[in-house]
């Protein structure tokens, strides 16, 4: 469905030091430099897959999404989405995809979202019955029935984001490029958005490529992740395998009925945190059985859970390892 081969994208960026002198000098002579946003990136995504696209700020995620949706021309390499080359922006391609950017919106600012929906229905040439049904379904799923007749500018960020999603999905795209779709939303709204995206993916068999700085989004939605740093691919595969590879330990969270001596905890494993009667231990995966048995036998346990380390930590470890490798390469 999505096929990216040796994709590269460079920008020419004007550099100038601060201050009046530098401003005057830049009138006569400007210093430009080429920034490689994406370099030799290749991956393939199948129909119906949900893939997380991860990387630190400036890694090239948004640039890649913009190339995939036909907004930017690649400097080198090839990109196909279905049978289409995105930058040709064939109307059938534009009908097939949607791009939701948490920072940008397509809703008409001074009009109610219902007007944007009417406009999209006309632009995408959707039969009225189909458009009405899709709108009704999406509006019900997101519970925004009373919002779509208020001017967009009077909606809160979260409300706008939900209305934005309906506008982006009204034509039932088969490929969803979602760039920070939950940015600025509160925790319950984020959860609702995730549930909605998963539901849409299952209902319409749509491929989803998602970037997010909220690792909960990725953990909840994406069995597969593509990780990039400075435009380079550094991992493409199963999320759980990545976690196990980078952090082979497990997190054992224990709730206790009474406070205990720290020395007792140290015997079980590395203590990550102790907060009153709540303890988190880091334990090698092979020792989990033994540690759980000992904890239950020696501590006043009320509740005990075993989890993978948080994805944030995994990502932090990957990117700091990348930085160290780069620093060693550049003397």
């Amino acid at each position, binding site marked *: 469905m999505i096929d990216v081969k040796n994709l590269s994208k460079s920008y020419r960026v004007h550099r100038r030091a601060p201050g009046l002198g530098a401003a005057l000098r830049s009138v006569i002579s400007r210093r430009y430099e080429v920034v490689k946003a994406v370099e030799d990136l290749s991956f393939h995504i199948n129909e119906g897959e949900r893939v997380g696209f991860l990387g630190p700020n400036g890694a090239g995620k948004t640039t890649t999404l913009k190339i995939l949706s036909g907004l930017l021309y690649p400097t080198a390499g090839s990109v196909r989405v279905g049978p289409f080359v995105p930058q040709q922006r064939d*109307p059938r391609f534009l009908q097939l995809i949607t791009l939701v*950017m948490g920072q940008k919106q397509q809703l008409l600012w001074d009009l109610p979202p219902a*007007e944007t929906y009417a406009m999209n*229905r006309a*632009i*995408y*040439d959707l039969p009225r019955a189909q458009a009405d049904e899709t709108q009704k379904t999406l509006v019900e799923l997101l519970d925004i029935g009373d919002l779509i007749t208020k001017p967009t500018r009077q909606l809160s960020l979260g409300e706008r984001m939900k209305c934005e999603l309906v506008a982006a999905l009204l034509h039932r795209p088969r490929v969803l490029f979602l*760039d920070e779709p939950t940015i600025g939303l509160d925790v319950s709204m984020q959860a609702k958005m995730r549930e909605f995206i998963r539901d849409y993916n299952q209902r319409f068999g749509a491929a989803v490529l998602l970037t997010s700085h909220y690792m909960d989004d990725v953990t909840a939605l994406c069995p597969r992740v593509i990780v990039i740093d400075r435009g380079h691919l550094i991992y493409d595969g199963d999320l759980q395998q990545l976690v196990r590879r980078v952090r082979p330990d497990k997190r054992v969270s224990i709730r206790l009925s009474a406070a205990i001596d720290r020395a007792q905890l140290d015997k079980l494993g590395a203590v990550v945190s102790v907060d009153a009667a709540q303890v988190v231990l880091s334990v090698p995966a092979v020792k989990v059985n033994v540690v759980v048995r000992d904890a239950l036998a020696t501590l006043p346990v009320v509740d005990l859970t075993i989890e993978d380390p948080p994805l944030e930590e995994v990502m932090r470890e990957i990117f700091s390892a990348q930085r160290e490798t780069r620093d060693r390469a550049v003397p």
Partner: protein
Amino acid sequence: MTLRRAIRAYPTLLRVGLSEVVAYRAEFLVWILTTNMPLVMLAIWHAVAKDGAVGRFDQKEFTAYYLAVQAVRLLTSTWVVWQMSMEIRDGTPAAKLLRPVHPLFAYSAEHLAAVPLRALVVSPIFAILYFTAGDRLAIHDPMLLAIALASLVGAWMLIFFTMVLLGALAFYMESALGLFELWLGIHAIFSGYLIPLEVLPPWIRGATRVLPFRYMLGFPVETLVGLETHASALRELAVQWGYVGFFFAVSLLVWRAGVRRFAAYGG
């Protein structure tokens, strides 16, 4: 297929565009009121013509001319150059580029949608024009009236495409507004906005015949106030529509080439 889809979508785009204009009605009216230069020029030339006509222009002719300039200017001008210049800088055209209808089609609908409201604002000016110089207007000659109406449509399209062309230059420059200011200065002289072209020295009049500015304002105004004959008006109409075709093609080419450079900043 794309054109058919766009044509089918156009009535909805116009309706939504009109809703936006209505939402901005206060700003829209203030903007319209700022177009008052023709009235200032009318006062000046009215005083000049007090002691005798200037060429073919007596006081009544000046009144008819500048009222027509005011009306035609309000009906045909567009702010698409500001919109495009700002949007290209902050990456907003991304939303338009992601839709399966050409963005220029969407821009044209947004701006054409303002015309009915403008016509409403302009109607009192036409009424004054009729009562002060009704006998000189093209309305008594059906053919001249038809040419005047066609020239108004041509003027709107010509202005729209030149503004799109200037706006699309924002793909290449940091902002197209400086260039637009320059264009505005030249337009004021060569279009007949400040001074009727007949009153200008012959060498400037000659230049106006080969430049597009006259066809954006002076020609429809002159036709409307009966300064053109059938033959000259038809000839000028053909030139005007030739310019419309030319600027349509050039603006489309510049847009297409510009989109390749679009950096889609923001987000």
